[in-house]
């Protein structure tokens, strides 16, 4: 928009990372990751609905180390985005804006994410699954 690029005062380089800003950008980042993961879910459904070759190809990729890393990354993203999402919905009904609550709920989200992701990842990797 400006005809000439003028220098900006530093912001990201100087602003101290805080629970507020870090969780906010993390919610956005995990959301974007999950958007891509959604397409993988579609691919899986299509593979299941198709012949055995498609299914085998999907399973081969899923069972590889690439698949394992992707699984943990997506699982962590899903858990964080969901738990922090609850925090967002609470803000939407007006609860939790006081700074002590913002920080307390923020840390609660972090702890819950780590615990739940670890538990579910353990279940996922002890193959054969819960069923």
């Amino acid at each position, binding site marked *: 928009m400006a005809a000439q690029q003028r220098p900006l005062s530093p912001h990201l380089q100087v602003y101290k990372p805080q629970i507020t800003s870090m969780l906010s950008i993390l919610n*956005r980042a995990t*959301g*974007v990751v*999950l*958007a891509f993961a*959604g*397409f993988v*879910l*579609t691919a899986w*459904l*299509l593979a*299941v*609905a198709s012949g*055995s070759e498609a*299914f085998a190809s999907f399973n081969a990729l899923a069972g590889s180390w690439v698949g394992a890393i992707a699984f943990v990354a997506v699982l962590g993203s*899903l858990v964080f985005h*969901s738990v922090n*999402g*609850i925090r*967002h*919905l609470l803000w*939407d009904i007006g609860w939790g804006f006081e700074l002590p609550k913002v920080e307390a709920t923020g840390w609660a989200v972090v702890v819950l994410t780590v615990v739940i992701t670890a538990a*579910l990842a353990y*279940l*996922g990797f002890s*193959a*054969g*699954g*819960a*069923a």
Partner: protein
Amino acid sequence: MSMRDPLAVARGIGSAKSGTGDWWMLRLTSVALLLLTPWLLWLILGLVGADQYTVRTTLARPLNAALMLPYVLSMFWHAQLGLQVVIEDYIHGWMEIALQIIVKFACAFAALASAIAIGRIVFSA
């Protein structure tokens, strides 16, 4: 620095149009996803390592299919709205329009493809 009268600028922008609806749908799909995601995780973790026959018959069960379809639809709707916000924030001009359209088409296509896959699984069981 614009020399326009602020009121003229405000009038030019006009109403928020679909903004309120988009805000609400993002929240509504969030609630739907919060209800459905635990089920999805339980289903998928239970299907780790299963063969295609098992996966297919599990998904073909009416209740599972009846939950998977709204999950997929809610998820892609939520994703489209969320990505829309991200694009609005960071990208402007013709590239923004192009990306918004691509995101909408991709999410719509994936939702439809998922629905067809679920339909096939259910009705060929």
